[in-house]
């Protein structure tokens, strides 16, 4: 797979730590909801650093959107979130991965469980669900630290519909004004919110490795078939 040239067309701040980059990518061959790309930055001395980022835009969108969380001691994300400006260019390879994807070609219910910036590929699935007019029931359970850390907060509200439910749970929100769920995603919350295993939903879990392990184990523990629980981990190199 060749490296392509991406040009920043727009930058959109999402939270204090995350930015969405809208990119024009030459020779982009289209993607599926849930796929990712590799980004490579090369310094003048030839040193190159490479990281993977999920695609936030749905298939068929005019531009490729990446939502990037800044890792302060990272090698790639500080530039993407702080320095990258309209017209800047960098190398990109993708789309990558046919495993963690949702194509929307059946009406099986879909449970999406995201932790932190793990919501990004799930957002592509929600957007694809909306754009394609899917009638599959889709439910996103999204865990963030505080309300201010919720990525796509307004976009998620706009996407909510009878077929698309969004549930937030906040692990460290101190404001008493927050009337929603608090605490981490665990078996109790999933049993309350998710479909029973008898419905045989497709489950997609994305987030930091410890989050994914806990949620995937909880889903299997509730009786969901392991083969229907697809996972994507990110973490230590997410810089």
């Amino acid at each position, binding site marked *: 797979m060749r490296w392509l040239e991406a040009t920043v067309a727009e930058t959109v701040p999402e939270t204090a730590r995350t930015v969405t980059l809208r990119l024009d990518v030459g020779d982009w061959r289209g993607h599926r909801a849930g796929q990712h790309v590799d980004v490579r930055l090369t310094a003048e001395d030839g040193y190159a650093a490479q990281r993977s980022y999920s695609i936030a835009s749905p298939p068929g969108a005019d531009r490729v959107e990446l939502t990037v969380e800044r890792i302060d001691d990272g090698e790639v994300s500080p530039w993407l979130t702080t320095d990258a400006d309209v017209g800047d260019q960098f190398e990109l390879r*993708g789309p*990558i*991965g046919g495993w963690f994807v949702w194509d929307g070609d059946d009406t099986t219910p879909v449970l999406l469980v995201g932790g932190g910036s793990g919501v990004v590929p799930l957002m592509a699935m929600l957007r694809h669900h909306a754009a394609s007019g899917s009638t599959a029931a889709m439910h996103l359970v999204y865990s963030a630290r505080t309300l201010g850390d919720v990525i796509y907060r307004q976009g998620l509200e706009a996407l909510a519909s009878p077929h698309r439910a969004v549930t937030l749970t906040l692990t460290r929100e101190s404001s008493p004004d927050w009337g929603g769920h608090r605490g981490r995603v665990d078996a109790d919350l999933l049993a309350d919110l998710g479909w029973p295993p008898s419905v045989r939903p497709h489950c997609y879990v994305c987030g*930091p490795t410890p989050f994914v392990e806990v949620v995937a184990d909880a889903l299997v523990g509730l009786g969901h078939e392991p083969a229907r629980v697809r996972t994507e*981990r*990110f973490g230590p*190199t997410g810089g």
Partner: protein
Amino acid sequence: MDTSPLDGNGIAGALGELFAFDVTMAATTCAHCRHTQPMADLRAYVRAPGIVLRCASCGGVQLRLVQSTERAWLDVRGIQMLQVPAGTTV
């Protein structure tokens, strides 16, 4: 330092430089424990000079990849069998 592993999804781009199929859709049978699982579910250790993929079941090393600008070294002795679904060529 956080040393928790990623999974096979995260290294699909790097392996895609060597393989003509989508590695996340392939399945391996572990040479150590004989467990068969999607490569997307293998544990990926990337904080090293190369990439190490370990079995999610027994932890045994299935694949090691080291790349330089001149060549790549690929050790797959931990994979007993590789299943590649038809139609997943990239």
